[in-house]
């Protein structure tokens, strides 16, 4: 058997792989969005902009300062996380007690400003970023050719998602975080520095977005619009998985990446709306999301 429903198997597998890659980026981003929503009660519209920022940090460090890929992969989340600390401490934390709408508008504004600023400085055109030497080439699996860099993206994204999930669901610190979403004043009365914890949570999550941006740089070109083109899908992922459900965000992200890939194979015209069709169905059937705790 060399084809499935008229599609050659290698093509199908190739699309599945692309779907998994996209899903990996959706996962890194939606994971952070879900945590930020669950813990800080903020709909972080700037998440795509931080992803873009991570890509630009990686590109800038490599092309202007000669720093290698591995360094940029390390520096991008750190610098983006630092930007997150500044934004959380100066702006976002003033809005925690207010309606979601305020932080949504604030972060949307930040996203527009960042994107506009980068377009102004660097232009709209994409910046190429070479695949690091260690991760070039590919492996012939017999049934398909697997580029090493793509395998690396999937593996490292999955590892980070799982580690983050474990840290939140299975560690003492994660327990403090979860409890702080339920009763922050009491957690603070038990001697835990809740404001610091929230700052670091935000920094960590936008740092993840920055990491995803740096990881994406060799695959897609780095451009000011890369954040806004991915963020809407990522929001759909979080809505489908259930706002605030961390495990749900990861699973949904990968599944939707694959669904998108398959749609591209069988009915390319619908590929860009596949995710939103799923979102509409989920909202109709289970409005609080597939993995939310309240049914």
């Amino acid at each position: 058997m060399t084809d499935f429903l008229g599609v050659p198997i290698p093509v199908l597998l190739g699309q599945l792989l692309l779907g998994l890659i996209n899903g990996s980026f959706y996962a890194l981003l939606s994971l952070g969005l879900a945590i930020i929503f669950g813990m800080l009660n903020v709909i972080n519209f700037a998440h795509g902009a931080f992803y873009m920022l991570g890509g630009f940090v990686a590109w800038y460090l490599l092309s202007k300062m000669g720093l290698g890929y591995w360094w940029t992969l390390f520096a991008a989340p750190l610098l983006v996380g630092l930007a997150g600390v500044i934004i959380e401490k100066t702006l976002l934390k003033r809005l925690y007690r207010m309606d979601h709408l305020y932080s949504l508008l604030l972060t949307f504004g930040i996203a527009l400003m960042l994107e506009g600023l980068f377009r102004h400085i660097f232009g709209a055109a994409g910046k190429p970023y070479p695949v690091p030497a260690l991760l070039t080439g590919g492996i012939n699996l017999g049934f398909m050719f697997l580029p090493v860099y793509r395998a690396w993206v999937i593996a490292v994204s999955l590892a980070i998602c799982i580690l983050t999930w474990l840290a939140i669901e299975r560690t003492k610190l994660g327990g403090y975080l979860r409890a702080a979403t339920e009763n922050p004043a009491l957690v603070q009365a038990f001697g835990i520095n809740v404001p610091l914890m929230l700052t670091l949570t935000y920094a960590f999550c936008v740092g993840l977005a920055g990491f995803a941006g740096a990881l994406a740089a060799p695959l897609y070109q780095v451009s000011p619009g890369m954040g806004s083109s991915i963020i809407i899908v990522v929001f759909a992922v979080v809505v489908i998985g259930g706002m605030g459900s961390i495990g749900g965000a990861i699973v949904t992200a990968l599944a939707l990446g694959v669904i998108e890939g398959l749609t591209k194979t069988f009915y390319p015209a619908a590929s860009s709306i596949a995710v939103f069709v799923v979102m509409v169905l989920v909202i109709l059937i289970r409005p609080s999301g597939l993995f939310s705790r309240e049914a």
Partner: protein
Amino acid sequence: MPEPALLNVSNLQAWYGESHVLHGVTFDVRKGEVVTLIGRNGAGKTTTLRSLIGVVGKRAGSGTFKGVDLLKVAPHKVARLGIGYVPEERGIFSKLNVIENLLFPPAWQSGGMSVNEIYSLFPNLKGRDSTPGTRLSGGEQQMLAIGRILRTGADFILLDEPTEGIAPVIIEEIGAALRILKDRGMTIILVEQNLRFAASVADRHFVLDQGKVVDEIANHALDANMDRLNRYLGV
């Protein structure tokens, strides 16, 4: 010579947003004492406790504990001085089971009780480790809320209406536990509406009215002053 006060609250004022709730609360608590704050609903009892641990935003005056002014301490550092807070709504985490709730607050001082000691103080909690915290009865949740503070090594406990909405049998058990804690040298501020319960554990009573301490009555003089007290409480 009387013991010097462990906590000295002086002219404590507090605001919720624009509304001025405490208008100068003054009282003291000596080491090993059980002191109650009594008064009508809205007199400022709960707000007094919340002001001391920094949950209320805007405060003035002072609350000196072991030489440190609590009003100048960051809210998350109050517990580290050995102050344990048991809120009125008990604050049991619904996503955690009994043992997780019990182990939740970090122990900041040595000398805290072990889980087994807590279970022998509150036998109702024993064998319930994996029950979700909020599935316990109100009284058991109260025991859990007190128990988890005892693990932290806190030697000064702020207890907000532990008897509210709780069956009389359980109230007696909580009262017995508080007397044991007192014998162990624990200092306690008890916010209470239930005068009979308050009288069974306390050394002194401070009467709050409209955000101020208006009277102080020693427990042994309670009967003699019952008329005066009833006037304050409006019963």
